């Protein structure tokens, strides 16, 4: 793929526009919609880069599942406009500083140069590139350790979520079941704390 493929440029530009839209949107649901559009465009970018499996996975996992759940939660909480006050003092300036560092890194990488396409314009993509088999192979041999670590992190997060939900509900149940034990639910030391 030559670096100046017009389709790639157009889709990439749209992806940036939707990403900016996601940050700037005042309405939470609009923000989430911009994000869905961004994920979809990212999937198209993967397609253009000859990785159809990754594109489909992007659609199924991010656009199809994660963002649906995000929308679900947003809708459960009701229609809210974005908070205009800053939870962290001076967060805009901090964000600007972080942006500067990342931008500098990007410029530096760009200066190092992208691997040039071979003579004749387009690089040759090996036939099995990006196929489910090649992806699986890489994931379960070369990258097996990071893969397992990620699944462990997800498991920990899941247990954490269950614990939080469980502890919030539990004292109330005990209170309902046996008022003698739990006169004031908030003061019960949890057995796992």
């Amino acid at each position: 793929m030559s670096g100046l493929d017009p389709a790639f440029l157009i889709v990439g530009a749209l992806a940036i526009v939707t990403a900016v839209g996601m940050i700037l949107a005042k309405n939470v649901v609009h923000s989430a919609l911009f994000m869905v559009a961004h994920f979809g465009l990212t999937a198209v970018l993967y397609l253009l880069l000859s990785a159809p499996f990754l594109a489909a996975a992007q659609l199924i996992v991010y656009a199809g599942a994660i963002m649906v759940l995000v929308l679900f939660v947003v809708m459960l909480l009701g229609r809210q406009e974005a908070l205009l006050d800053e939870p962290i003092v001076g967060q805009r300036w901090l964000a600007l500083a972080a942006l500067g560092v990342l931008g500098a890194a990007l410029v530096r990488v760009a200066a190092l140069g992208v691997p040039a396409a071979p003579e004749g314009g387009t690089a040759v993509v090996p036939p099995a590139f990006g196929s489910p088999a090649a992806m699986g192979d890489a994931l379960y041999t070369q990258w097996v350790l990071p893969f397992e670590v990620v699944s462990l992190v997800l498991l920990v997060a899941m247990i954490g979520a269950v614990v939080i939900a469980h502890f919030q509900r539990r004292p109330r149940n005990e209170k309902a079941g046996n008022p003698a034990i739990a006169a004031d639910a908030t003061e019960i030391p949890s057995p796992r704390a």
Partner: protein
Amino acid sequence: MDAIELGIVALKCLVIVAVLLTGFAYTTFLERKVIARMQQRLGPNRAGPFGLLQPAADGVKLIFKENITPVGVDRFVYFLAPIVSMVVAIMAFAVMPVADPITVTIGGQVREIRFQLADFNVALLYVLGITSLAVYGLVLAGWASNNKFALIGGLRSAAQMVSYELAMGVALVSVVLVVGSLSMNDIVDWQVAKGLPLIVLQPVAFGIYAITAIAETNRAPFDFPEAEQELVAGYHTEYTGMRFALFFMAEYINMITVSGLAATLFLGGHHLPFVERFTGNLPWFVDIGVFLAKVILALFLFIWIRATIPRLRYDRLMAFGWKVLLPISLANLALTAVVIAFLAR
């Protein structure tokens, strides 16, 4: 890609949209007729012979209805939601193979014409990915309408579709394990080569697929997003005229798509796997007829189930999805993997 090839692709797109829209119209007709007969009524019989023009009459009525936009809706999202539903429904059909490719000579060049818009090596994942976007139409409609019933309908659809999608995906993975490919054509060819449809090898996966397909298309007994006794009309309560019709179309086109997918994955697609051992490969027009017959059979089952089984309770639906379907599909996947691993040695 030259001009002629581009023309062929454009033509295929037109044909797919036209066939799906006609298919939608006559699926509603089939549904009304079949349910009427099952309830000992006649069904629509006034417009045209046997009521065959009823879908056209319905269409005209919906087009001429006033489009009412309620106060307090989120305008952009309110307009967007039906469009999302419809676009996603039509897109999913793009990878469905309908007949064997034929070769024709156009302008002195021999060209192969496939009865399929596109085939790539992850076609099955493409269908799953696109159909998983279908939920946005419902969720956004429910949210944008500024109506409690619509919002609850949208929320239900989000919860329901995410839960049932998982079991469906896992059930289909066991099919993919057996065949060893995600391409629609490979899956059909495999069934023809082995001489048996995959429903024989993977009956459990087929059962789970059939149940989850009903839930994914929000059909009775899983039609919670629009349960009329509880939610007026659910997510499309505030929609009228053609905007409502788009949701209606999307539902029926989704039915056609999941039926086509069932035919392709489990019933041999446009072939007759066992029969073709004796007759040889059938010509393309017979292929189309075979595919159509399988789809109509599946649609009939959809309608039959709707006429037979009352709606579940919502908590039962979620419990059934997570505590019954998902474990069964996981066990089926593990069993399939083990058997394949031992057969490979």
